[in-house]
């Protein structure tokens, strides 16, 4: 009896807290990851409210209009989800390289090239049936995006060119190339006022998702976020990537192929971003034109940072920002505010959330040790072996 108790105590002794305490410690850690960004976002909204009040506009009316224009009705919800879809992909293009320590801000270029590639591929594929041709169009987009952002990773890994700057330059170059092709060789001669490529055709257009009225980009985007989460947090490959992002030297000493990891994950991010362009062409516009560069890539950066580069958190954040952007028109009309209002709000949110990075680990309330150790320390004194 006594020996058994001693044995169980011995096996429990090496600082392994019981299941319940483990859960509590886990909860404490997780609630920090939720509470701080939420508090930061609320602070950002409050600051924006003060800014509006200083302009003589009512922040309450703005909040009401955002609710009505973005979330309040089925129509508004559909509109927000429609805008959230490309943001999901664009944010992944930031979040995946970010785990490797790269700040990639050129997703806009991959979106534009992806859309263009899909539209261009539709013409030679016209002889194929739609179920075969549409995936091939998507593949063309994926390839364009993967090459474009993969090049950013390659330049960083093998040439030492800073990814932030090269990705942005490449995005300007991509938009110039796309404009050149859309206005020149690939232009549909019948598109007069709004230069576009030849339409992909009714047969190659994607319908809405059943019961939602939103195109398939949303579903695919959510799936892409889940896939990215599993890849990053539940696989060896993702672990290797995070390790390379945390400490390059240590990763190299472990024999990890850091260069190939960087190229692979940036290419994957670029492929995701290109899907946003694909869905804009194949589900919304029907052709590739100037509206591809609508700024989704830049809002995606904000989404990724607000989600703290966590693929799961990207989903709600993209929905929130999609809703805010969807209500932009209503705000402009009702409150006589310029269209840049949303941009100011986004900039403020971005700044406050970045500044809140400094708060992590500062509050005792969220410390896992506090919760895991509460009753643990009293009955079982720490064994001296571990010290």
């Amino acid at each position, binding site marked *: 009896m006594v020996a058994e108790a001693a044995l169980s105590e011995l096996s429990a002794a090496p600082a392994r807290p019981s299941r319940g305490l483990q859960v509590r410690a886990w909860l404490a850690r997780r609630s920090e990851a939720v509470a701080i960004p939420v508090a930061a976002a609320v602070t950002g909204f409050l600051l924006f409210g003060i800014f509006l009040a200083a302009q003589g506009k009512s922040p309450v009316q703005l909040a009401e209009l955002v609710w009505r224009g973005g979330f309040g009705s089925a129509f508004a919800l559909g509109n927000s989800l429609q805008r959230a879809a490309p943001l999901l992909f664009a944010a992944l293009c930031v979040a995946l390289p970010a785990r490797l320590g790269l700040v990639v801000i050129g997703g806009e270029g991959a979106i534009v090239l992806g859309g263009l590639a899909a539209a261009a591929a539709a013409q030679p594929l016209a002889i194929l049936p739609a179920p075969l041709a549409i995936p091939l169009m998507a593949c063309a987009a994926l390839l364009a995006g993967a090459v474009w952002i993969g090049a950013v990773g390659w330049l960083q890994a093998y040439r030492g060119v800073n990814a932030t700057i090269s990705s942005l330059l490449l995005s300007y170059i991509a938009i110039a190339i796309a404009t*050149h092709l859309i206005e020149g060789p690939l232009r549909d001669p019948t598109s007069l006022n709004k230069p576009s490529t030849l339409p992909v055709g009714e047969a190659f257009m994607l319908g809405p998702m059943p019961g939602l009225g939103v195109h398939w980009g949303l579903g695919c985007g959510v799936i892409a976020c889940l896939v990215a989460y599993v890849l990053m947090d539940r696989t060896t490959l993702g672990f290797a990537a995070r390790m390379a992002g945390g400490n390059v030297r240590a990763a190299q000493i472990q024999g990890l192929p850091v260069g190939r990891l960087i190229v692979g994950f940036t290419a994957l991010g670029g492929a995701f971003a290109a899907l946003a362009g694909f869905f804009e062409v194949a589900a919304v516009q029907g052709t590739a034109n100037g509206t591809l560069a609508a700024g989704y890539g830049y809002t995606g950066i904000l989404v990724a940072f607000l989600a703290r580069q966590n693929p799961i958190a990207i989903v709600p954040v993209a929905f929130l920002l999609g809703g805010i952007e969807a209500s932009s028109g209503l705000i402009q009309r009702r409150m006589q505010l310029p269209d840049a209002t949303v941009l100011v*709000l986004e900039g403020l949110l971005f700044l406050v959330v970045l500044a809140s990075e400094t708060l992590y680990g500062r509050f005792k309330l969220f410390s896992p040790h506090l919760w895991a150790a509460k009753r643990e320390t009293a009955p079982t004194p720490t064994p001296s072996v571990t010290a």
Partner: protein
Amino acid sequence: MSDDLGLWSVLLAVIGGAIRVSTPFLFVSLGETITERSGRINLGLEGILVFGAMSAYGTAVLTNSPWAGVAVAALSGAAFGLLHGFVCRLPRVNDVAVGIALMLFGSGLAFFLGKPFIQPSAPPLPAIPLGFWSSLPQVRAALQVNVLFLAGAFLSLVLWWAFRNTKAGLIVRVVGDSADAARAMGYDVDRVRLYATATGGALAGIGGAYLSLSYPGSWNEGVSSGQGLMAVALVIFARWNPLACFGAALLFGGAGALGPALQSVGVSQGYYLYYAAPYVLTLALLIATSSPDRALAGAPGELSLSK
């Protein structure tokens, strides 16, 4: 005679364009040089540039004095620089990310507050006709040199001298090369970086004032085409040397003027591709001058960009 000018006119337009277009590059890159020499990178200069353009234009419209506009642009730029410096001195806050946020915030605020100033016209900054000796109108047009361009050229010389020979220049360099050494010498690293970022912001604001008050000389939402960001790449290419910044700014200005110059002589093929010339040039220079194995020669040791 005017027929012979064919290709020469392209060259003249590129030279004139280089002088006209390079001024914002020059100011932003000098500002970024000061900031980066102190060991911090401010990618938000693009936003500051746009806000500077707006505030300068708005002030010039209201007061009818372009120089008041330049002053306000410098002050607002310094304020944004202070904001960047304050947020970045918090522990664990990434200066690159804060710069991106500032880019968004600065241009958003500029578009928001600048809406009423799109219509009215502001008095432009004065230009000095350095082409008086020539009878050719093209030469005269190319050599209409703005006062701010000359001021920027002079400033790059002064900064080059100051980094080597003044106490302030040395302090900034020590802080940028080794924060530990600077602390050991008793300098407040965060404060030096705060001032360096604010100074950099003020210069970027002046660059913005040039955009709206001289060339292109109007305020709208497309006033900047990424000059603020290209200037960051330009600083790397110039190896954090103010004098080299001057040459690099002229080079970038010339590349930017290539598209319009070719279009003016009737080359319309690949029109949009020529507009990408400055970006391609920047990228090519970055690729050519970077190396994966060693930090760039002349790079400040504390800079997150080159670590």
